[in-house]
């Protein structure tokens, strides 16, 4: 190897040393530097010089101190730029509804929850052509229109889980409402007037019931 070629190789290795030190070197360049470091007595001294440059460059950069309030000023600029927060993507309508529900006062929350409850109950119990908890529903819209019902208002502090469990275990369904003042139309699967009256009494006796008003009774009712 001539002196010129040797110098050229040295130049090339010196050029690659900073990248060897920062760990970004790979492939044939990495192999070449490692081979050089292993074979040339001058290479380790050169590596030491590059490390000194590394320290010098780092110190020169770190001598510059960003302003301490940079983040707070950026946050304000971001708010000015972005305007109202974007809706988080990927969450379901139910999760979003639940989030909104959790953000409102208890009294209002209950009305909102009642709407959700009604949606869930109707979806699960009166799906057209589907099966209810204890009986099959056919031609649901007609059946719902003819179904015996009562108008019910629940207490503001009632727990949704208690109501849901009670309705489910007695075959009762929310088929309408709530009105502006929180009154629900409750479908009552009673075969006769006596059964209807018994169910109304049962609803009225629940701790979460505020008011029950009799509506349409079964056909044989008086």
């Amino acid at each position, binding site marked *: 190897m001539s002196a010129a070629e040797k110098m050229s190789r*040295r*130049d090339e290795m*010196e*050029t*690659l*040393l*900073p*990248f060897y*030190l*920062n*760990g*970004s*070197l790979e492939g044939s360049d990495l192999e070449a530097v490692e081979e050089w470091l292993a074979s040339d007595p*001058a290479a380790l*001294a*050169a590596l030491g*010089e*590059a490390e*000194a*440059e*590394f*320290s*010098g*460059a*780092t*110190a*020169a*950069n*770190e*001598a*510059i101190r*960003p*302003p301490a309030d*940079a*983040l707070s*000023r*950026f*946050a304000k*600029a*971001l708010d000015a*730029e*972005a305007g109202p*927060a*974007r*809706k*988080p*993507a*990927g969450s379901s309508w139910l999760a979003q509804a639940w989030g909104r529900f959790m953000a409102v006062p208890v009294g209002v929350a209950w009305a909102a929850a009642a709407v959700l409850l009604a949606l869930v109950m109707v979806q699960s119990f009166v799906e057209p052509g589907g099966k209810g908890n204890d009986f099959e529903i056919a031609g649901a819209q007609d059946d719902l229109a003819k179904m015996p019902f009562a108008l019910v208002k629940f207490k503001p502090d009632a727990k949704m889980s208690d109501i849901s469990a009670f309705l489910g275990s007695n075959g009762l369904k929310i088929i309408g409402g709530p009105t502006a003042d929180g009154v629900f139309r409750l479908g009552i699967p009673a075969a006769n007037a006596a059964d209807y009256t018994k169910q109304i009494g049962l609803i009225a006796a629940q701790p979460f019931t505020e008011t029950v008003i009799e509506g349409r009774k079964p056909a044989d009712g008086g």
Partner: protein
Amino acid sequence: MTAATETDRALVDRVAKGDRAAVRLLFMRHHARVYRFVARQTGSEMMADDIANEVFLELWRQAPGFEGRSEVSTWLLGIARFKALSLLRKKKEDWIDDEAAAAVPDSADTPEVVTMKEDKAAALRRFVNALPEEHRVVIDLAYYHGQSVSEIGEVLDIPVATVKTRMFYARKKLGEALKAAGYDRGWP
């Protein structure tokens, strides 16, 4: 995955979905380096402050289009470089001077006089600062920002071969300056 271990790319994905907390996390991770990078290029901390803020607002705007072809840090430095150049051009400052780039760093005192008062580390820091901008930025990107040859090419929008050439001359100038100051390191 906690915020502390969440990758930059995962955070950019969150930013793309409108997550402001994610952009603030990225700001905390990268702001100081972006700020220093711009300050070193422009020589103005006031400009660095404005541009660094703009870089992260740009991150907010461009996150939905980020394809992950480069590291987030490289992407941010590329944006910072572009914005700094644009601002400097507006100010009609001829900041890249090829003749100056070819010259050994100047100083008010001769290197010998200065280095009599300081050790080698301090001298190196001083010589790095005195490098022409096109050489100093390559030194900064490699040593301080940990960028690879190809990443530096991406940030500066120059070919890989040019990155290597600039690194060669940058290190050569540092060696010459050290030699003139009495620290002969055997190369060049």
